């Protein structure tokens, strides 16, 4: 018997996503991913000054503000062939990395963990046993018996007052929840501690970006942070020393808590290494440029074909022609039209954003997302793609943290878990934690580089751009927390003539393309178990493992409807 389940909207994500699945004998046989919000921000940019684009594009999304700002200035700099000072590169790198660390910690503990952790079940835990277990796995200072008792008291008070309902769609008591009470308690304690720790990452972004949530300091040509070692209101040594202290706290948490927890949770859900594989063509961009031009990067990136690390094509520089020429977007199943017809696939420089809404048509148009391809193939992007490409490139820290994590899972689960297990729902969470550990180390390295460069007497942070007459085209890419982001700009006589953003979630949440190939979410859902169609927790686990961010999002409050989060099982 085939049953259709519609989840609209998927909650605990950014933006408005609808997911439909057909379930046969308790398994997903077909899936549809549909972006439910029109994102025509590109049209707002046409005719504007390219120097203003970053400030506008960072309003596309509430979670990814900084990433659009960074990507936009890179695109315009590429169009002008403009190098930026080394200090500016380092300051941007610090913002990028602090933002990524923040994003990964929050995604795991505050948005995804509730798919795996049963908060109510933690009340059955013995805090002493929980402490003994946690201390056997990590040197973290927050694993004491006293701490776990305090947390247990706090949850029991919270549950007693009936306030747990504010956590939307927490599936407490669902049969797919498998953690022992002690592990649930450890996870809840770390959830609360993560709230404290994420502040340090946010403060780094705020100090260097001059403001948060919307940073103010980037500019086409560099950054607007004057550097001085002795003056207030600019980037002083005192502020930089505070940044270094916060980096240290983040390092401690990411390596001794986050990375460990992912391994522990993974070990209790070994079957989830066999679900959620989907597309194994991986695309990630290199990032954290180490020179003024963007030809050397601390973190490598590129294309891994068919999940095979031996089939790796690196992306070499900010001007990489291979990347530039490989991207195109189809709209056969999207609510848009192209002048060239339904089957056309357009390069972003030629991109068109012409809405054409129909109803949700299973075999026709059903999403506001376009379908991007790389050399005519749908891709998976995000932390798993990033880890796969960095492993393929032989990046030592990535190899070290990946090995450590797989060994930890193997040892706790008592089974041999190899790299192939990474191509899965739980593997995406593991990859995010591995990536986060690599990024927090890199954060410390970039701090050292900035300090050393300043000590050498270089105070430069900005190269003024000039806009020649005529047309220039440029692209910028950035390995954002959710995967590769690219902005594409066509400038004509100093004004924006065309602008396209190809965002990570579009790659992953894409509908079928013009050759009927499913997007990454759709492919990964096929084969997922669904125990209870009224509580499709398993579907959410796989969707959430991608960390969806459907940028754009309307933010209108609605008090007319009591229940707007609908799970329809028909």
């Amino acid at each position, binding site marked *: 018997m085939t049953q259709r389940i519609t989840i609209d*909207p998927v*909650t*605990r*994500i*950014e*933006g*408005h996503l609808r997911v439909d699945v057909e379930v046969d004998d308790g398994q997903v046989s077909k899936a549809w991913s549909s972006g*439910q*919000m*029109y*994102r*025509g*921000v590109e*049209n*707002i940019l046409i005719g504007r000054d390219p120097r203003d684009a970053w400030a*506008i594009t960072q*309003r596309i*999304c*509430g*979670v990814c*503000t900084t990433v659009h700002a960074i990507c936009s200035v890179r695109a315009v700099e590429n169009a002008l062939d403009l190098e930026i000072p080394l200090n500016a590169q380092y300051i941007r790198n610090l913002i990028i990395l602090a933002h990524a660390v*923040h994003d990964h910690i*929050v995604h795991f503990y*505050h*948005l995804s963990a509730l798919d795996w952790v049963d908060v109510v079940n933690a009340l059955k835990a013995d805090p002493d046993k929980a402490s003994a277990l946690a201390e056997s796995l990590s040197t973290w*200072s*927050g694993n004491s018996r006293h*701490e776990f008792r*305090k*947390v247990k008291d*706090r949850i029991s008070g*919270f549950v007693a007052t009936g*306030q747990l*309902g*504010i*956590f*939307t769609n927490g599936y407490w008591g669902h049969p797919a929840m498998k953690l022992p009470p002690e592990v649930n308690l450890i996870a809840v304690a770390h959830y*609360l*501690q993560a*709230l*404290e720790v*994420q*502040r340090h990452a*946010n*403060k780094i972004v705020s100090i260097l970006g001059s403001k*948060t*949530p*919307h940073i103010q300091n980037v500019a086409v040509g560099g950054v607007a942070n004057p550097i001085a070692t002795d003056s207030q209101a600019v980037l002083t040594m005192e502020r930089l020393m505070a940044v270094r202290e916060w980096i240290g706290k983040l390092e401690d948490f990411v390596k001794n808590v986050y990375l460990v927890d992912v391994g522990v949770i993974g070990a209790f859900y070994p079957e989830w290494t066999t679900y959620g594989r989907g597309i194994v063509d991986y695309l990630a961009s290199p990032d954290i440029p180490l020179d003024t031009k963007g030809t050397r990067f601390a973190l490598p990136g590129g294309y891994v074909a068919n999940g095979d690390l031996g089939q790796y094509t690196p992306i070499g520089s900010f001007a990489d022609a291979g990347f530039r020429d490989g991207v195109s977007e189809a709209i056969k199943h999207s609510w848009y039209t192209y002048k060239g017809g339904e089957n056309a696939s357009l390069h972003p420089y030629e991109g068109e954003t012409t809405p054409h809404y129909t109803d949700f048509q299973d075999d026709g148009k059903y999403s506001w997302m376009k379908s991007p391809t790389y050399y005519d193939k749908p891709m998976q992007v995000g932390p798993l793609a990033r880890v796969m490409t960095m492993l393929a490139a032989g990046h030592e820290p990535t190899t070290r943290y990946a090995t450590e994590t797989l060994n930890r899972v193997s040892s706790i689960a008592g089974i041999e878990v190899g790299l192939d297990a990474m191509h899965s729902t739980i593997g995406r969470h593991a990859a995010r934690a591995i990536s986060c550990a690599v990024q927090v180390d890199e954060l410390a390295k970039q701090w050292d580089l900035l300090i050393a460069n300043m000590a050498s007497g270089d105070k430069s942070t900005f190269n003024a751009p000039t806009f020649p007459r005529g047309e220039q085209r440029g692209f910028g890419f950035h390995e954002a927390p959710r995967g590769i982001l690219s902005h594409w700009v066509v400038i004509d006589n100093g004004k924006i003539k065309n602008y396209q953003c190809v965002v990570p979630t579009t790659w992953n949440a894409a509908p079928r393309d013009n050759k009927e190939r499913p997007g990454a979410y759709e492919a990964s859902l096929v084969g997922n178990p669904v125990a209870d169609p009224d509580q499709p927790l398993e579907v959410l686990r796989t969707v959430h493992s991608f960390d969806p961010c459907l940028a*754009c*999002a*309307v*933010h*209108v*409050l*609605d*008090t*007319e*409807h009591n229940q*707007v*989060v609908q799970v329809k099982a028909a």
Partner: protein
Amino acid sequence: MTSLDAATDPQRAVLLGVGNILLTDEGVGVEAVTRFAATHDLPSGLSVLDGGTSAMEMLDDLEDLDLLVVVDCVRVGKPPASVVVLQDDEVPAFFRTRLSPHQVGLSDVFATMLLTGRAPRRIVIVGVQPVEVSTAMGLTAEIEAVMPQVIDAVRRALAEGGYPTQPRKVVAGAH
């Protein structure tokens, strides 16, 4: 290392504008607080925050507040361009029912603050029913016309919460 006990900061208040300024009236909250800050002298302890559509990034700023005034675009079944004030018993509904399709929004921040015991002691929502939420920058003329009413509601909410503000005197010829 972690503190689960409510902090004992001096009293403070935040005027928070939320919404997306790329979607016409959806950005009314951000627009209102930006204008308010530009035209009023603020007492000490009161800060103004443009939250855009962000969420957990605002946590630090919103914890342990004496008063939180939120300006947002709301759908409350009133005619377009209506201005409403929600307070006391009406506030939990604001967070518990749909805040937006943006589920990782203010409601998650609020849930988190309840869990940690650091939620604002008093919350007032100044809501504006939108006329249009299409993709463009700038408010519609109808919402522009009620902006003085929105600003006034904000000023009253702040004053009633113990944070009186004065319109800034414009010095003739200053422009």
